[in-house]
């Protein structure tokens, strides 16, 4: 990834040295990593919005409004995945590591896979296998 904004569902205060949330809809904050010319330029966070049943499109709307171009999840349901695709946000998958920094570095290096339609899981989020 050369340029763009990566979003990571995070627990607590988030940040590059923080930890990922297993359920993106229920995360505390989203950590944003702005990438320029293949390098991390800036790190910021935004508060997640309230999660309600059936509110899968709320985070889609939130991240699209902040011009996110890529999202890294541990798992995701079909509806939010289709929503992110519709607004042009690429969804990448890593269900092994809880730390934010290594998955961001892998995405920038082109080592993370985009999630496939047949990899969707239930519950609107899924869990990291950690």
């Amino acid at each position, binding site marked *: 990834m050369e340029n763009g904004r990566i979003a990571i569902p995070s627990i607590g205060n988030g940040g590059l040295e923080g930890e990922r949330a297993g359920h993106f809809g229920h995360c505390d904050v989203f950590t944003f990593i702005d990438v320029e010319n293949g390098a991390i330029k800036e790190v910021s966070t935004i508060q997640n*919005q*309230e999660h*309600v*049943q*059936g*509110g*899968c*499109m*709320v985070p*889609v*709307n939130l991240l699209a409004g902040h011009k996110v171009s890529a999202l890294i999840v541990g798992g995701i*349901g*079909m*509806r*939010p995945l*289709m*929503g992110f695709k*519709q607004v042009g946000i690429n969804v990448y998958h890593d269900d092994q590591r809880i730390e934010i920094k290594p998955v961001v570095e892998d995405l920038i290096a082109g080592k993370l896979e985009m999630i496939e*339609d047949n990899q*969707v*899981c*239930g*519950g*609107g989020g899924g869990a990291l296998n950690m």
Partner: protein
Amino acid sequence: MINIILITGENDALSDFESGLRQDKEIKIERVNSCEKAFDLISEKNFDLAVADENIAGTPGLEFVEKLVSINPLINCAVISSLGAKDFHEASEGLGVLTQIPLRPDQKHAKILLQKLKAVLNLMM
């Protein structure tokens, strides 16, 4: 205005529920009796909510929702279903269904559904 599409066969069991929805002056409802008509209408107009009957001319409501989500994930969905809560949760996981509606819903269910819908729509503003 909140636009709702109700997808059901000739189902008189929904008349009280539909009447309850129509009591809200913000609500506009269109009713169709097949999945094909629903997809045609959804391709032409914006809807905030699709309410799918348990069985729509031979197609299970959840099957309709799964297809709808893949085409237009922005539409909120509610499904009429006789499944128990746990079974419904498992059957609908990942589809982001707003709520399960019982087989013979009444005006009270309409009111609850609208409360849930408005809560989601408010978060999207």
